[in-house]
């Protein structure tokens, strides 16, 4: 194949205030089953509120997640182990925040991908966000966090803001502050 001259990636833009409600499909925030078949692993719930600068909750903000399966494998050919990925786990979900800024996912506790601590990749889209915002959720108390390369590239004083707090055995809270105060660290990739 002859390689074409490099093209410049298209400019991003905000989703604006009118992202169609029908694009938040029923069940899109439940990753624990695919076409009726149950994914392997421990079911957990991840939830939290998303707030802007003055602490006001943001409604209708779109949260998307991407994660490895219970054994830390991504369902994607770039993962050397992808042939062993759980066939009943896609690893992707979408939730829209409610009036109190709350989002919620039902998913499988991810295993540790090679060289990483268990984590969930998070992106946010909203009116006034000119680019997709990306962050990473880690799990409270996991000793592997301290050696995770993404966790460790965040200034030490802000790392705890990437940690979802355990609210019971299978329940984790990960609230997100877009700006100011305890601002969630976001990544520039």
């Amino acid at each position, binding site marked *: *194949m002859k*390689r*074409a*001259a*490099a*093209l*410049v*990636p*298209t*400019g*991003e*833009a905000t989703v*604006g*205030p*009118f*992202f*169609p*409600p029908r*694009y938040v*499909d029923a*069940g899109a925030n439940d990753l624990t089953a695919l076409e009726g078949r149950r994914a392997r692993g421990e079911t957990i719930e991840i939830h939290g509120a998303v707030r*802007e600068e003055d602490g006001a909750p943001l409604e*209708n903000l779109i949260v*998307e997640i*991407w994660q490895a399966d219970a054994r830390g494998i*991504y*369902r*994607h*050919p*770039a*993962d050397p182990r992808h042939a062993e990925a759980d066939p009943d786990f*896609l*690893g*992707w*979900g*979408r939730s829209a925040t409610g009036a109190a800024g709350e989002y919620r996912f039902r998913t499988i506790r991810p295993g540790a*991908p090679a*060289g*990483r601590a268990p*984590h969930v*990749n998070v*992106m946010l*889209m*909203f*009116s*006034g966000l*000119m*680019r*997709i915002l990306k962050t*990473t959720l880690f799990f409270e108390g996991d000793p592997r966090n301290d050696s995770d390369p*993404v966790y460790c590239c*965040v200034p030490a004083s802000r790392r705890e803001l990437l940690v979802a707090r355990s609210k019971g055995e299978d329940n984790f809270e990960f609230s997100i502050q*877009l*700006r100011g105060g305890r*601002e969630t*660290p*976001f*990544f*520039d*990739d």
Partner: protein
Amino acid sequence: MDYLTPPRDERTQPQRVIAGYPQTARRTPAQPLVRREPTLSELTGPLAPAGRLALLGGDIAGHREKRAIGQLMHLCVRVLDEDGAPVGGAVVEMWQANAAGRYIHPNDDDHAPVDANFYGAARLVTDETGAFTLRTVKPGGYPVPGSGGWWRPPHVHFSIFGRVWLSRLVTQMYFPGEPLNGQDRILNAVPDAAARERLVARLEPPRGEPYDALVYEHQIVLRGRAATPGQA
């Protein structure tokens, strides 16, 4: 296939905080974004989310007595990566206002009429050449409430899933020759003039009897290059 996602030229991407668009200042992080080397987490992504997302057809203009009001258009879009290689199998979500500039959404107010025959959203998948075609009507412009006279020019929203997490794109497409383009606060947030120009579709000659639709072509480039040239 391994994929590389080189950093983008900032001038080709919108500024994050925009004068006259106050929500950007309340929602854009104040702390610098943290640079990280992409790991497998960023260089994989949902390849088949269509299994989770109900597809809607690419014909949203309706027919005969159900035809939406407005100028019919065929919007022919190709989705490529940074090598110019087609991105087939990509889920595309689009949404737009009706010909009067009104969205079907609880956030839209009463400034313009709803068209009973137009919802204004389509979700489809690109073919093996990275292409998809929409049959729709040209959207109208509309005023942004509380903005002191800012009107959005006619535009179409796209949300596209590429091959990896870092290819995910949300963008807007504009129309050539629109007088509102020059003063739009979102389009003009992109500093580089050539990058702005690439957000504008191209008008092509109408195709075939009865020549009842305008034809616009547009190209969207997702982040990502194949690591190994020639590898499929």
